[in-house]
């Protein structure tokens, strides 16, 4: 009550908005719903009653828009079932994006936690390393890593890489890009939490540093990491698409990215080939961004920590 005057005089409009975003809200639930739906579809793709995504249904289906009999979302440029390809595409796209960001989360999170908690030389070294990797634009770094680790077929007997290896390389490349980002956030957040009384208290009481790091600091740093993780998955989904457009992505199996890449020549006659996977990316990215924002507002993750 003491500060009621100051409070009311400056009632920031933001405050109202923050409390509004604190609850998930209809858009939040819609986002969660979409993500659950798309993840389930991706995971269950092989047992769902879907057409073979690689099978062409011929001229009748090729470049036909949504709503033709037997093919709910129409066919692609050579008559493969769009719905099936979208769902199998989600499988690969999400596998790559989630895999990459999980890699970044585990490695970057651990390094950031170490750097922020142990400080000293280790912190200097790790921070410098983060900065080194951050000094190459993310897409350029990912592109270079993929190019080197999974060279493309030059068409003259060069050694094309297996599909599995290419997927792993993409996960690795996009993961390496995320490591320093998550590392930096985690470090900054750890720095601020490590100074709190309850952490100091358990240090004084003789708890082992590893225990303090994981039991006291990590749970508090986690919201910040989660929020960036969600945004990171969104960025990785788009990055997969970018790499596909640049000709270094997955080619053997459908991904949202390579569906757009192959469809771009047919924008005039069959725009749905580009628009359907684009919409899938759009809604997934939007849902992830929104939930990331909610977490950020909910746990007051400071922009400064970025």
């Amino acid at each position, binding site marked *: 009550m003491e500060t009621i005057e100051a409070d009311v005089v*400056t009632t*920031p*409009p*933001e405050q*109202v*908005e923050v409390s509004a975003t604190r609850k998930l809200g209809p858009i939040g639930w819609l986002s969660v719903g979409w993500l659950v739906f798309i993840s389930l579809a991706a995971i269950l793709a092989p047992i769902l009653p879907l057409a073979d995504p690689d099978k062409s249904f011929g001229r009748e289906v090729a470049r036909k828009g949504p709503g033709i009999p037997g093919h709910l979302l129409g066919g692609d440029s050579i008559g493969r079932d769009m719905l099936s390809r979208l769902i199998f595409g989600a499988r690969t796209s999400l596998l790559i994006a989630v895999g990459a960001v999980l890699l970044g989360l585990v490695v970057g999170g651990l390094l950031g936690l170490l750097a922020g908690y142990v400080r000293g030389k280790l912190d200097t070294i790790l921070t*410098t*390393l983060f*900065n*080194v*990797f951050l*000094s*190459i*634009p*993310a*897409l*350029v*770094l990912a*592109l*270079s*890593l993929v*190019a*080197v*680790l999974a*060279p*493309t077929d*030059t068409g*003259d007997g*060069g*050694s094309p890489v297996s599909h599995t290896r290419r997927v792993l390389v993409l996960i690795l490349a996009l993961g390496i890009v995320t490591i320093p980002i998550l590392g930096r956030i985690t470090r900054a957040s750890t720095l601020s939490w490590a100074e709190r009384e309850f952490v100091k208290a358990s240090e004084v009481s003789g708890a082992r540093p590893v225990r303090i790091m994981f039991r006291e600091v990590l749970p508090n740093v986690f919201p910040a990491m989660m929020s960036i993780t969600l945004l990171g998955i*969104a960025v990785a989904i*788009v990055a997969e*698409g*970018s790499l596909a*457009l*640049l*000709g*270094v992505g997955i080619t053997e199996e459908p991904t949202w990215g390579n569906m*757009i890449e192959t469809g*771009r020549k047919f*924008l*005039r006659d069959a725009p749905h080939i*580009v628009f359907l996977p*684009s919409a899938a*990316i*759009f*809604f997934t*990215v*939007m849902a992830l*961004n*929104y939930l990331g924002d909610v977490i950020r507002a909910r746990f007051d993750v400071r*922009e400064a920590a970025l």
Partner: protein
Amino acid sequence: MHLARELGKRVIGLVVVVLLVTLFTSFLLTLVPGDPVDTLIPVPDENEIVLERKAQVRERLNLDEPFPVRYVAWLGDFVTGDMGSFFRVTDEDPVADRVKDALPVSLQLVVYSQIFALVVAVPLGVLTAYRAGSRFDRATNATAFGMLALPNFVLALVLAYYVGVWLGWLPVNGYVPFSEDPAEHVRHMILPTITLAASQIAVYMRLLRSDMVATLQEDFIQMARSKGISDRRVLWRHALRPSSLTILTVAGLNVGALIGGAVVVEIIFRLPGMGTELVQAILSRQYVALQGFVAIIAIFYVLVNFLVDILYTVLDPRIRHARAR
């Protein structure tokens, strides 16, 4: 005195980062499977000329030397202007020459898009902050949120197809130097600029809005209002400048990040910039050239970061002062 020392420390940090980045890119090359020379010159060893050429390249790239020696040699070449080449059986195409052509294209694209993004985002950010919570504010924010989720390759394809091909209003590929034909230059740059700017408009608008909302709560804004000057004046003269630190910093950093980082837009609109060069090097497996491009892009990025940082901390203590509280 204090300033000079701080500056010195930063310059050293800068050099360390650049050295480590180039070390990393050099190391990357050792990961390429197979004999690097065979990769660079993918021709069977069928005659003397080819064999001789391969030996020559091997010699020139110090491929028989251990990695540290190779790196130091590369560094020496790099700082003296030999940034690697596209190798062919008969000759080679120096990266430095290509950079000379490609860098201005990328720079133009990046600068145009940043200016365009700021010109659109600043008024929107100011007005949404002023009308925070209004229908206009919510609609603008929702639109911005949507723009953030729209991958730029999708926007590029849509714009290229509908505005370029279908309506036929603007060219969708190629580059015309300004000195050659200013009007055509502008026409060729419009779509790539808009594509690149779209998501940044959303980012900048949101950044400025939130800083501006905070500034509008400040005492000095109440003070300015109490002078009886118009709201417009309060917004633009009193509130905007103290709120613009973050947005200008981010815009500055983006100039660095988008040299090469705009690769998708460059490829789709066929602009011969750094991103295009990079992809060409990758697709033709010219890893030495790739290393050169990545090094240049990274150095550029680090330098821009450095400059923005200096501007931020040294040149405007007044803003720092306003934000520090």
